[in-house]
């Protein structure tokens, strides 16, 4: 927490420095936009470097968590520098407006991502299970195979197909792939309720031996539910970048165009 405030303090100091500088430049009837614009470009460059850093994990370029902190604080700093630079919330001129839309979009998606980065890891920790996102299909397949093996074994050993029938009609759908995605990303408990309901409904129609198998299937279903939760949350943690990164790339392209236009028409 101390580290965050350190970054924030540096960002505030940087912004105040630029602000005072622009005021001084403004007072001397020069062009403060060049100062705020230069600072903004520098901060955007730092923001972009985070992506580069992620592609070069083998280089000793500061730990990733520090980069993340820097990226988050610099993002907010960039927003305030943008306002200082543009002097208005919504500038005039088509190309500047497109740049503004893209910048605001990037910032907004970044803020949403930051919120998710702050909330979701806590939710995942509370699940009590850890799993690698890329291995989830394999884990789910493994659980599914185990569940189906248990159901087959139950049928063979008890001679009753009640559990098998129930599996085919209800639990099979659940084990097929990750379920309750929307509910999970909002931290809902629908999956847990559903699994418990499906198992408890069946319980009174089973004999003692079958109940033993049902309990094992229930344990697998619970594990699968937790992996589903991981899948939903980790998907969100990864897929918000599908919005943020392309927008950032578009912003950078527009920034370069902006620099060209300024150099050509305002040199």
């Amino acid at each position, binding site marked *: 927490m101390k580290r965050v405030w350190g970054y924030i303090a540096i960002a505030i100091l940087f912004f105040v420095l630029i602000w005072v500088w622009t005021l001084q430049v403004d007072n001397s009837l020069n062009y403060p936009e060049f100062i705020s614009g230069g600072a903004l470009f520098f901060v955007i460059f730092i923001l972009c470097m985070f992506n580069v850093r992620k592609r070069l994990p083998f280089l000793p370029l500061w730990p990733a968590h520090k980069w993340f902190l820097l990226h988050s604080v610099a993002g907010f700093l960039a927003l305030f520098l943008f306002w200082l630079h543009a002097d208005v919330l919504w500038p*005039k001129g088509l190309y500047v407006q497109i740049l503004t839309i893209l910048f605001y979009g990037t910032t907004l998606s970044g803020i949403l991502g930051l919120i998710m980065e702050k909330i979701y890891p806590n939710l995942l920790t509370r699940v009590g299970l*850890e799993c690698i996102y890329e291995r989830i299909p394999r884990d789910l397949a493994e659980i599914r195979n185990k569940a189906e093996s248990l159901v087959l074994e139950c049928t063979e050993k008890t001679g009753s197909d009640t559990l098998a029938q129930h599996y085919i009609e209800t639990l099979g759908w659940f084990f097929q792939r990750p379920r309750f995605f929307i509910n999970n990303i909002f931290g809902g408990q629908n999956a847990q309720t559903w699994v418990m309901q499906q198992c408890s409904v069946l319980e009174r129609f089973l004999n003692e031996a079958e109940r033993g198998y049902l309990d094992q299937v229930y344990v697998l279903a619970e594990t699968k539910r937790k992996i589903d939760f991981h899948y939903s949350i980790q998907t969100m943690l990864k897929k918000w970048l599908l919005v943020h*990164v392309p927008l950032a790339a578009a912003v950078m392209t527009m920034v370069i165009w902006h620099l060209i236009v300024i150099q050509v028409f305002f*040199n």
Partner: protein
Amino acid sequence: MDTDKFNHDQSPYERPNFPYRCGRGALWRTPCHNGPKIDGSCGGTRDCEPFFKEDRWLCRREKRFGGACAEGPGPRGECSWQRPPCAPRKTLRVIRGRIAFLAVVAIVALLASSQALNPDGGSGFISLSDAGPLSKAHKKFTEGCSSCHAVYGQGPVGWAKAVFTQLDISERCVTCHSFGGPDSMAHNNDLAKDRVVRKTECIMCHREHSGKKMSTRQSTSEQCNTCHKNKFESFSRGHPEFPDGYPYFDRNAIKFDHGSHLKKHFENPKFTEKAPTSCIGCHKVTLSDREVRPQAYETICVDCHGSQITKKDLVLVRLPELVSDLIDRDALVQACNSLTEEKSDEEFLSVSTEMPALVSAFLLNVPEDDPEIYNQPLQEFIFSMAEESHFSIEDMVNSQTEKPMADQLLEGLNPEVLKRAACSWGLNLEYEPPAEAKFGGWYADMLEVRYKPMGHRDPVAKSWVEFALAVSTIQDDEDKMARAIAMRDQVISPKEGVGGCVKCHAVSETTTIDGKKKLSIEWKYKKANDRPHSNYSHTSHIEIMGNKSSCSNCHILDAKAEYMTSFKGFDASKWSSNFPSIKRQTCVQCHTESQINQDCQSCHVYHLNPGFKKKMVSVKRQMPENKKTQK
């Protein structure tokens, strides 16, 4: 399921930085043990291999790759069953990279298309170099963006050159805008002669592309302080004291002694009814701006001063005391077409004992106090008047100035009156007019030809004042100069001068372009224009403080001021106003923190006489005609 198995060497395929992931896993089936290859082909398939076991050939395969094949090897020993390869999917990282690339491509395509299909080019629909709408005035530029941006429409080569060339948009601004001084100098004025001041550019303060209203920077004290030597925080804190005499730097064009009028004349019971009750009785508040101009003479002065003008005549010619009769009587009788009258043998005794008029003495260049000298030229002059009427005077008047003035000076002069008077004087007789001159204009009476002004703004009286002032500074001859000055002093005398013009109108000495000094009379109310960088609006102040007593808040009458003494000389720079100088403290009473704004631009104007170039004005004048022709 081993959920703790995170070690990279124990996990078959879980690296997120791979470009592909297993297609089976993507469909939520059991993923292949080996992930896709780097080229995107499936790396998880493995053929069954024949295996000899217990005298039999079997087709076997590791369980993780699909297990043993159901059908054994064929007659040639080959295994027939293979697990079909899946179609690996792109990983999120690759998808993200592609979307980002597409976003960049989309922006580049948009930029490229906007340049190719620019609206100014006539075929496009958007302009991605458009920095915003122009102000109302500049929106009408016929040449579009290139009116200001020289590089516009020059193509990529022009753009590349522009990056390495110093451009100055201000140069384009001054093709239409004009100022009273150098365009790129601070305040359009060479104010700081003792030091180097940087070049100014229009865009330092004026910004376009901000919508209908041009964005103009409001100058703050800090901005002014960057150049100005006297640095201060605000008007109320540290602004230099107003200079002595502020704002009464210029001597008035009209001599109006507020002290004598307010304290003496207006309190005189004789004039009380006619006197105004407050300042606005004379000063026109409705049209006030920097100055609250007094109303016209006919509105505010004529009631008291109206009769004074017509009482003060100009004496053009006077029959003076003559020492002898030198006029050829026969010639005079012939010229005057009168009865022959012989000269008497008696000693000549002049009918007049007066001195010649100063005007004629100047025109003839004779001393007005020496009859011996002026006797002959004056009688020749009288004879010429009797013979040619005004022609002789006309020639003499026109020869005095560079530009002939006789037409204005002698306007309305009846040749017959002049001739008859001259004929009488030639016979050493007083001229007897047919009736007393009651109305204004030229007339002859006894020994004089006079001009009676008809009222205010009388053109002949004005011309004579101008003539007297003009000739009093251009004489080379000392004697003639003295005569010119004597004539001038009489003509511009408030009490005796024609119309008493100079009783109210100031006479000032000015310097011409070629360095010569000349005197000129200020006929019209003069606007103070010696402070082009200062601005003051009476209107806004009167609106706040009311129009009755608000004047005296700042303009306090100094009854002891020697106002009229200032007009005895011609030096307009030396004078004392009826009102003591206004001090900064007077303004600070309201213009201070938390009260009324004290921005520099509230009182100061940055530019010197801003305007438009002549071509702009002429274009504007031509516009209605163009419209007519278009119709």
